[in-house]
């Protein structure tokens, strides 16, 4: 039963690493090895070979495998980054348990009841990562972090409840059972829209995402926002495939959902424009992106679905890049901490370039990975209604303005270290009277390499998107609810 191994292996290893969690570097090193072993395990698993366990079907399709390998690779990278940047004491065990639960979601995708509850469980485990503190920390947990964790807990539990309720109702519904009455399929779509809207941070359920981006450790944000949300998206596609009646009887409901997606895209970009903090700005841009993704799914067209899934894939790499870059830019660098630094690109050139490149990739600027996926979404929007396309282009333009504003305010200001003319030595001046020469730390080499690798990955995916698009499109074409 190799699928069970896929689920149990990271969970058991996570439990084992919990015992030695105080030895941070050993734990992270072992976690990285475990993640690599998990990648090997995923590549060895048979594709599209369903098996049964306790009356449930377990299977892995090519899309699931692609995403699962990416999730585990991102987690391995997260362990490497956590080696260099302080993360929570329980980061490695929690991440491995989350990986086990996410693997189980992907192999149980044909079992919506189980997956809805597994998603809640992943959310509950993620709460522990949000309020975690580094080993031996002498600080208290921030109130704002506690508030963000509580908000996430409540919203994700409600999301799971809504999904579950929707699945129970759709499972007992027979089309044409109640002629003349409002179809329960509308109610089901409404419940699923709220459930997935909460999960993916769609307007008006978006508030948790910028808070989370601000409060958590960088790699925790990547895992919670990137990995868990991408898993939710796979689940949404699989749920629509499993219950096609939701699509077939809800043409108007899906149109409403597409409008909500397009409005969320613009709203998120406007929100990004108003954010004074880098992390919250990225959070707002992610809300905007979620709007476009939900539009792609609701369009139920091949281009829309392929674009949405590809965008979600890109977002995983971009998020890792953005949060590593932000973590580097936020590092104390020997200058006073109470002054807003405006010359970050000159001070940390690689991290600054990573942030700019990451935001460009998120907005779909060529030649980054986001361009190919955004192009598919734009095409899907143009095919359906020009107004959707106009809203998307407005959202992207606003996002670009937000990027320019960020660059002006934080990255491209004049370097603080201007050459100073040599002052003449006055009579009576001693060595002690001269100001001490400041020694600014250089950009950490390891993290700079990671940033460059991620930036390179964004470029490679942007220049050669075809293999990934082909894998996604092949699966999308096999979906029964897709419109021609």
């Amino acid at each position, binding site marked *: 039963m190799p699928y069970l191994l896929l689920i149990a292996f990271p969970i058991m290893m996570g439990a084992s690493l919990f015992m030695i969690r105080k030895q941070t570097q050993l734990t992270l090193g072992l976690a990285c090895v475990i993640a690599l072993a998990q990648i090997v395990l995923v590549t060895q698993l048979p594709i599209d070979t369903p098996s049964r366990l306790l009356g449930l079907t377990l299977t892995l399709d090519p899309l699931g495998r692609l995403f699962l390998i990416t999730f585990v690779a991102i987690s391995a990278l997260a362990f490497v980054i956590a080696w260099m940047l302080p993360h929570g004491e329980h980061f490695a065990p929690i991440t491995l348990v989350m990986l086990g639960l996410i693997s189980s979601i992907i192999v149980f995708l044909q079992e919506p009841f189980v997956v809805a509850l597994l998603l809640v*469980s992943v959310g509950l485990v993620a709460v522990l990562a949000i309020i975690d503190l580094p080993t031996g920390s002498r600080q208290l947990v921030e109130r704002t972090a*506690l508030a963000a964790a509580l908000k996430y807990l409540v919203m994700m539990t409600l999301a799971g409840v809504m999904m579950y309720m929707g699945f129970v109702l759709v*499972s007992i519904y027979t089309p044409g059972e109640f002629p003349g009455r409002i179809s329960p399929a509308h109610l089901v779509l409404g419940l699923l829209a709220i459930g997935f809207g909460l999960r993916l941070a769609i307007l008006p359920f978006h508030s948790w995402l910028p808070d989370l981006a601000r409060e958590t450790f960088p790699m925790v944000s990547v895992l919670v926002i990137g990995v868990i949300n991408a898993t939710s998206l796979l689940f949404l596609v699989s749920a629509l495939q499993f219950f096609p009646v939701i699509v077939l009887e809800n043409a108007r409901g899906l149109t409403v959902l597409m409008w909500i997606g397009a409005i969320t895209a613009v709203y998120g970009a406007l929100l990004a424009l108003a954010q004074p903090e880098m992390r919250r700005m990225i959070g707002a841009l992610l809300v905007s992106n979620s709007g476009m993704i939900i539009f792609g799914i609701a369009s139920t067209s091949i281009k829309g679905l392929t674009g949405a899934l590809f965008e979600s894939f890109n977002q995983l790499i971009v998020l890792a890049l953005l949060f590593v870059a932000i973590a580097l830019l936020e590092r104390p660098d020997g200058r006073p901490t109470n002054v807003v630094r405006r010359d970050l690109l000159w001070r940390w050139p690689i991290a600054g370039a990573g942030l700019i490149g990451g935001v460009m990739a998120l907005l779909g600027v060529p030649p980054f990975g986001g361009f190919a996926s955004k192009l598919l979404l734009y095409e899907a929007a143009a095919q359906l209604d020009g107004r959707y396309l106009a809203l998307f282009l407005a959202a992207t333009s606003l996002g670009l303005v937000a990027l320019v504003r960020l660059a002006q305010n934080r990255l491209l200001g004049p370097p603080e270290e201007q050459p100073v003319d040599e002052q003449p030595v006055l009579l009576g001046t001693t060595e002690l009277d001269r100001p001490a020469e400041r020694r600014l730390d250089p950009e950490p080499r390891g993290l700079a390499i990671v940033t460059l690798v991620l930036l390179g990955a964004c470029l490679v995916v942007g220049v050669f998107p075809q293999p990934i698009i082909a894998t996604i499109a092949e699966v999308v074409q096999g979906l029964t609810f897709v419109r021609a």
Partner: protein
Amino acid sequence: MNDTNWVLVGIGISGGLILLLRDWRLTVPALLINYGCIAAFLAQQQFLAADLVISGVELSSTVLVKVITGFATTSILAITALTFSREYNQENLDEFSLAELRRAARRAQRERASQPFHLGDYVVPFWSLVLAGIASLALPRLYPIGSYEVDFVWYWLGFTGLFTLVTANDMLKIGLGLLLIAGSIDMLYTAISRTVQIFPLAMLSLMTIVLALAIAYLSGLLFSRLKTLELNELYKP
């Protein structure tokens, strides 16, 4: 009077008490009663075939699982409420953190001293309770899904849970609201779904217990940080 379904009355009153009251010494036992009544309701309605005999009473093992889940969940919350503080290792904290803890303790003590009983605090929960009652009685007629009793129970649990969540002023009450909502979908699945599988039922019970643990952990952390479970303290500058 003989037609009165006392199990339904029990579910109604216990859910209402959780929504209305603020003291955990009353709400946590009410949750235990609620779980007990739900299990009794499931046994009474016989949605699942009996496969156990305990003291001459035929029961489905699922009903027993619900009782155990309810007991475990309430025990977790009760133990958390009794011990509350998951104290930090204060010797590991720096002086700023220690000062902040002392400040929080003083503020919490002041708040407790200056907050006598106000009937006004119960106005919103009371009207929420009335609204939940009207909705739970009307919706099963307007939008029937299962039998009237089943629909009443899951609507009632869902609405009281939602309103408890909305009107909650402390962390433990948020947890109680979430657990009531989880109980609602549990009832919906068990009583209404065409094929009740053992694995989703087990997952529901597991999720309920993990949810209680998460709430207990957050409550402990909040109390040790702010010396209170009041949520408004969390958002004060």
